[in-house]
């Protein structure tokens, strides 16, 4: 189990009702009190400590299947972490440009602003690696960031001081850089500690219960950003993607249940088909009149059933996914529960669940259901009908999680059976969400390990460092009141924050982190409150485990029960493997020391130690499967994130070209017309375009498709001619003039189809194609 904690930190065990203590702590470093004393758990922690420390020593590398699978998983996680950061940054750029491009298309942007946008675009390039100007700075910033990382309270405090405008860039640095290793238990746990600190503050400073967690605050912004990290994304994908995708396939499935809307649609359909309206069906009725209409009722009745079925299926998947829910999200739920119980000791479970739902459903699940595209769950924009259905599903789930007030939309009362049937189920689920272990113990351990590590590094940009420094400086009066505090000392040494560098000069650096105030690790036993016997015992256990994993399978030595003395002997006498020999000798020493101390006994075959080692090995065996399974899931997440990345990059490229083009034109008005070379024609077969997804739908009969081809030409930058040809004929069947503006505007309006009569093109894919083919040095 110790190893489980170490290897898969984000999945803490859920069956811990007995050890669960509702006491919440403010700070990890202050946890030297009674509740952290179960001897067994301490042991596990120490084993974890040993295992992770030895894992760092190169000469002890184990090369079995498990080790390889774990290595692959680690690498994958690192890739996801860095990729999701890149996407976060790109998304910001694209969002900014989305709004600007609209203005540009409407020709309403002043030249200066065009230039400003162009500068922004030029900056959006991959950063180069670099270094700090000098070693002294490297060291001082290394000290500062170590302090910020290992003592989350400083950033928590800072988050409360900054404005909402400042917080985005701070959170980017915090979530994707300082605690950017999203699958590393120490960084994850430190980040959660920071969450707790900010949450506590919010609970203490919100006057009334109904406003709790409602406003958009640093905490809610943190939650948004947090759910964008790898584990949250992969969970949403796993739990929601399939259901949402099958729902949006049903473009014609209209599940509107608002009587007014249903009535209006019905009336306009009748009017269209018959030309007039029957006298008993006037336009412009009230909601009550519409609801009383029998035809409307007949239309709505089956829709209610279907909505409830769909919502039920969503709910069941979410509930079944309890174990898949990211640890961090569950832990936050747990904090909400304990904080609300502390603030309102008389609060019922139901009230507490309402608050948990205010986080879990309102800020995590439902936004993804309502706008699945921004969560990378689907590719296109859903059609109106499925979109409305998804909104209903989210509303129903939210109603379920909270106390629905049908005062708002009376017709929603009809969905009450769904609430009644599931009320208990969901309350139980939300309470179950909170059943995760605290991590303070392992965090403390991790922090000791971190102190002992020599190679703690942070990949961060100079501008991130400077911006963080600048924020700290600006709020130093509050943050570093005590002049002798570590933060004060470091800030004083650093002096004032350098200005932000232009993007071209910005660099990514690998900053070695270390504490300015070394904590000696020698008195580990004192610090962790354990005895020398226990330290020996754990070391023996981990040493034997390492030896066993290095032994070839099927040797007589691996038979159970294990003969520890023989194993040690065999290891100590291995040929040509000095590491193994050292391990063997050490294990012999440990066996005799432990026996002298009376912990184990040779006469029973060192049973106490042997049993634990055997358990550990069994556990490691099943762990390999888990690791492989986790890798498989994460591969998928990584693929999605990468797809999204190329989508974002392509979008930026398109904007860039468009902008160059527009600026070229406005320059052209004043100067002489620039010479423009005609580009193309480039020829594409029907099959090619179909494969690339450019052709979304084709009306060309199968047997003729081989004879169809397309020519793409760009006579002027920003202008394209697409022609459709039939083999053997000279003239094209059809020719289409396209302006880049129009394509961009269509894309902006979520118009995804470009009609060429014989075929339907996908607008985004056409843009990708044009982008690839016609990129001119200065615009298109």
């Amino acid at each position, binding site marked *: 189990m110790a190893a489980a904690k170490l290897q898969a930190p984000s999945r803490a065990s859920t069956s811990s009702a007995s050890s669960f203590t509702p006491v919440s702590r403010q700070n990890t470093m202050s946890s030297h009190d009674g509740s952290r004393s179960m001897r067994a758990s301490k042991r596990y922690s120490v084993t974890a400590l040993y295992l992770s420390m030895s894992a760092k020593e190169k000469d002890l590398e184990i090369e079995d299947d498990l080790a390889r699978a774990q290595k692959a998983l680690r690498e994958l996680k690192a890739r996801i972490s860095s990729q999701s950061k890149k996407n976060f940054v790109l998304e910001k750029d694209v969002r900014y440009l989305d*709004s600007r491009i*609209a*203005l540009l298309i*409407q020709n*309403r942007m002043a030249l200066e602003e065009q230039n400003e946008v162009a500068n922004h675009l030029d900056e959006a390039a991959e950063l180069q690696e670099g270094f700090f100007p000098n070693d002294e700075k490297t060291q001082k910033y290394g000290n500062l960031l170590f302090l910020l990382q290992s003592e989350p309270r400083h950033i928590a405090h800072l988050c409360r001081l900054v*404005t*909402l405008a400042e917080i985005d860039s701070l959170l980017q640095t915090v979530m994707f850089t300082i605690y950017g290793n999203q699958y590393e238990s120490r960084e994850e746990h430190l980040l959660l500690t920071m969450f707790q600190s900010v949450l506590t503050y919010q609970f203490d400073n919100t*006057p009334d*219960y*109904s*406003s709790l967690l*409602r*406003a*958009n*605050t640093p905490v*809610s*912004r943190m*939650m*948004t950003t947090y759910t964008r990290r790898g584990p949250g994304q992969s969970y949403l994908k796993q739990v929601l993607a399939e259901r949402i995708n099958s729902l949006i396939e049903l473009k014609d499935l209209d599940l509107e249940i*608002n009587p007014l809307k249903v009535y209006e649609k019905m009336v306009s359909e009748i009017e269209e088909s018959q030309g007039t309206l029957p006298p008993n069906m006037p336009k*412009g009725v*009230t*909601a009550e009149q519409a609801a009383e209409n029998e035809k409307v009722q007949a239309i709505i009745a089956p829709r209610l059933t279907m909505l409830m079925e769909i919502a039920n299926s969503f709910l069941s998947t979410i509930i079944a996914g309890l174990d898949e829910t990211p640890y961090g999200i569950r832990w936050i739920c747990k904090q909400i529960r304990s904080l609300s119980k502390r603030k309102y000791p008389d609060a019922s479970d139901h009230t507490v669940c309402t*608050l948990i739902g*205010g986080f879990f459903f*309102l*800020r*995590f699940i*439902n*936004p993804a259901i*309502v*706008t699945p*595209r*921004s969560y990378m769950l689907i590719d296109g924009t859903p059609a109106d009908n499925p979109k409305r259905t998804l*909104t209903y599903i989210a*509303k129903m789930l*939210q*109603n379920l999680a*909270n*106390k*629905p*007030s049908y*005062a*708002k*939309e009376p017709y929603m009362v009809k969905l009450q059976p769904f609430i009644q049937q599931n009320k208990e189920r969901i309350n139980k689920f939300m309470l179950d969400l909170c059943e995760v272990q605290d991590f303070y113990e392992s965090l403390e351990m991790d922090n000791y390990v971190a102190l002992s590590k020599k190679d703690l590094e942070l990949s961060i940009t100079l501008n991130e460092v400077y911006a963080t420094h600048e924020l700290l400086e600006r709020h130093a009066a509050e943050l570093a009141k005590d002049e002798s505090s570590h933060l004060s000392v470091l800030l004083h040494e650093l002096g004032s924050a350098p200005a932000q560098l232009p993007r071209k000069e910005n660099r990514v650096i690998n900053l070695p982190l270390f504490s300015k105030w070394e904590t000696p690790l020698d008195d580990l036993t004192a610090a962790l409150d354990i005895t020398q016997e226990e330290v020996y015992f754990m070391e023996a256990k981990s040493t034997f485990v390492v030896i066993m994993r290095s032994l070839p399978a099927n040797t007589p030595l691996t038979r159970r029960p294990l003969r520890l003395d023989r194993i040690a002997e065999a290891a100590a006498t291995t040929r040509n493997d000095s590491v193994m020999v050292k391990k063997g000798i050490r294990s012999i020493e440990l066996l005799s020391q432990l026996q002298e101390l009376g912990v184990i006994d040779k006469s029973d075959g060192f049973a106490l130690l042997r049993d634990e080692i055997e358990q550990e090995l069994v556990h490691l065996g099943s762990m390999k499967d888990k690791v492989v399974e986790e890798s498989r899931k994460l591969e998928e997440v990584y693929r999605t994130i990468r797809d999204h990345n190329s989508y974002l990059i392509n979008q930026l490229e398109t904007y860039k070209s468009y902008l160059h083009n527009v600026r070229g034109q406005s320059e052209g008005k004043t100067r002489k017309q620039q010479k423009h070379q005609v580009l193309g024609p480039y020829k594409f077969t029907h099959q090619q375009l179909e494969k690339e997804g450019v052709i979304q739908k084709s009306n060309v009969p199968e047997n003729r498709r081989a004879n169809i081809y397309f020519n793409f030409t760009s006579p002027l930058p920003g202008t394209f001619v697409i022609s459709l040809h039939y083999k053997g004929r000279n*003239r*094209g*069947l*059809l*020719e*289409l*003039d396209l302006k880049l503006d*129009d394509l961009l*505007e*269509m894309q902006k*309006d979520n*118009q995804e189809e470009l*009609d*060429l*009569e014989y075929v339907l093109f996908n607008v985004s894919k056409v843009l990708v194609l044009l982008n690839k083919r016609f990129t001119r040095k200065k615009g298109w």
Partner: protein
Amino acid sequence: MSQREYHIVVLGSGGVGKSCLTAQFVQNVWIESYDPTIEDSYRKLMEVDVSTSFVCTARDTLTSVLQQGRQVVLEILDTAGTEQFTAMRELYMKSGQGFLLVFSITSMSSLHELAELRDQIIRIKDDPRVPLVLVGNKSDLEEDRAVSRARAFAVSQGWGSPYYETSARRRANVDEVFKDLCRQIIRRDVELSRATDTDHREGRRRRDTQDRSRRRRRSNRSREHRCVIL
């Protein structure tokens, strides 16, 4: 008698009381429970006091409005204040003709958030004079006030929009807010249609962007078809 339909969108940060305000206006109820909104729609018939709202408009347009009747239908869209739902905002803004920007007088940051929303509305509607009312809700919580009347008023002046303080709980100023917005919408409607009369193209250009883009698409189409050689 023709009934005009106007689309109103209620926007603002989470927990400021958008739903309470709307439900008070439409249904005369006070919602006590903790019930965050995702998206709710309401409809209400309202008598508009035309005589007071058109003092400043020309006589000919006034008569044309009178002929169209005094009762209007308000389609009110109550939105999610939770910031995780921002992806839906743009669509709301496209469909709305008038906007209530609501904050809570007990939270300065809820007022700050509105500036960004207003910018977005103006960008999307392509109209700096889009009908809009700034609403400071929770005026019954005077003891917790964090935004002074003067401060909020200054903001609204900067925008050229009216400012009201409301209490959804006590139903204070609730109707007034909606009425003011409604008058603004009608006035803007008249101005725009007058502009259309005098300068047809100019008026159309200034109509809302949705209209414009639809037209543009149509012209795309005609271009497409013109080029078919077959």
